[in-house]
């Protein structure tokens, strides 16, 4: 298995690498076009800001590389958001691999003041899972989220979470998968999901 993690100006790449190591998988961190295109599976991680990340990808033509990938790709957090159509985070057009848009959580949508903290930081449940990515993952199991922006529910939603409103915890279209939460920090559930991506997603 030739597993590649796309290197760009976003954090948490090390964390993803270590999480894969813990489940016995080796991955290569690279921004080399040939290496990314030639990989069996690609992970597109990210913690950071959408518009500067898109600019970085475009400057290096990595945006086109990612769009043209035909092997399974897993976007994590910002990686997933960048695979959406458009992000309200500095109003940037993203890769449009998913039709969903990325929006800012708004306090006005909160039913109670104590729930209105943004970013959402912590463990939340996911439900309505519709993908092999979630094989053997319990309905309403907990995963770890850190984010201020969210992908709306849409035709590509394969898991839902609630924070202020229901939103896409994961998306899937063709060979492209994305998760808003951090499987690399989500204890056993997260390791299961990473394993599923490697073993069950095509």
């Amino acid at each position: 298995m030739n597993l590649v993690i796309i290197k760009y100006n976003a954090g948490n790449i090390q964390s993803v690498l270590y999480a894969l190591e813990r489940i016995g998988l080796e991955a290569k961190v690279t921004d080399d076009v040939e290496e990314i295109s030639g990989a069996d599976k690609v992970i597109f991680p990210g913690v950071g800001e959408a518009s500067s990340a898109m600019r970085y990808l475009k400057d290096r033509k990595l945006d086109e590389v990612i769009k043209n990938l035909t092997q399974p790709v897993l976007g994590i957090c910002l990686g997933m958001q960048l695979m959406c159509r458009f992000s309200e985070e500095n109003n940037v057009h993203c890769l449009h691999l998913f039709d969903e848009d990325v929006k800012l959580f708004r306090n006005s949508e909160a039913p109670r003041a104590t729930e209105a903290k943004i970013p959402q930081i912590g463990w939340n449940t996911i439900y309505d899972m519709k993908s092999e990515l979630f094989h053997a993952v319990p309905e309403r199991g907990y995963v770890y989220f850190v984010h201020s922006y969210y992908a709306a529910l849409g035709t590509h939603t394969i898991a839902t979470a609630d924070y202020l409103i229901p939103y896409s915890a994961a998306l899937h279209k063709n060979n492209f998968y994305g998760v808003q939460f951090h499987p690399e920090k989500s204890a056993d559930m997260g390791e299961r999901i990473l394993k599923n991506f490697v073993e069950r997603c095509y």
Partner: protein
Amino acid sequence: MLSKRIIPCLDIKDGRTVKGTNFVNLRDAGDPVELGALYARQGADELVFLDITATVEKRKTLSELANRIAHHINIPFTVGGGISSVEDVNVLLQNGADKISVNTAAFKKPQLINELAKEFGSQCVVLAIDTRKEEDGEWYVYLNGGRTKTEMKCADWAKQAVDLGAGEILLTSMNHDGTKQGFALDITRTLATRLPVPVIASGGGGTMEHFLTVFNEGKADAALAASIFHFKEIAIPELKQFLLKNQIPVRI
């Protein structure tokens, strides 16, 4: 629903946990990585590693420790203790820390919070505040591990820090720390209800009821404790079952 978090804190000196523990099932309870991994298996939601080393070797030891933790532990962790620059933080994050906490250095140079938030994002900037309620009934900020009093009121400093970009507040009540008589409910509630960021309550947790109260009445988003976990006075699985039974959303 977003769950309330239970966070064990490990004090570190020269790469070893300081306070003794009586975990007989650990090969080496002084090894922060092994102890942290045990807590992760037991259902801790996050870990905080607080370095109290005061030597020049500190930085290297701490970044090496962060790297070992990141390799072995599958939940988020925060590293704190003497962090005073963007470069300090960069090294720790590069080595796999999810968040860092700043305290005295941020108070002395509030702009540090802004620099860190801009460079790495608010989500990884935790402001730790040590506070004590004085006879005038007000909560004041203390520095240098609680040794130096300031004239700054806790709620004012917390507000200022959040405006500068702090993404979370780790609030320790010096009046309550070590007493096992319960968390400081009033100041925790003040911060938790007024600030738009999560508040981690610390200091005073001695029974499972104390945790229930700090979530229900203190409105805390997370609760942190050290020795009661280290000495198994409270086991995390039982604590979480107890909270769940009392309608607190926790991850089991």
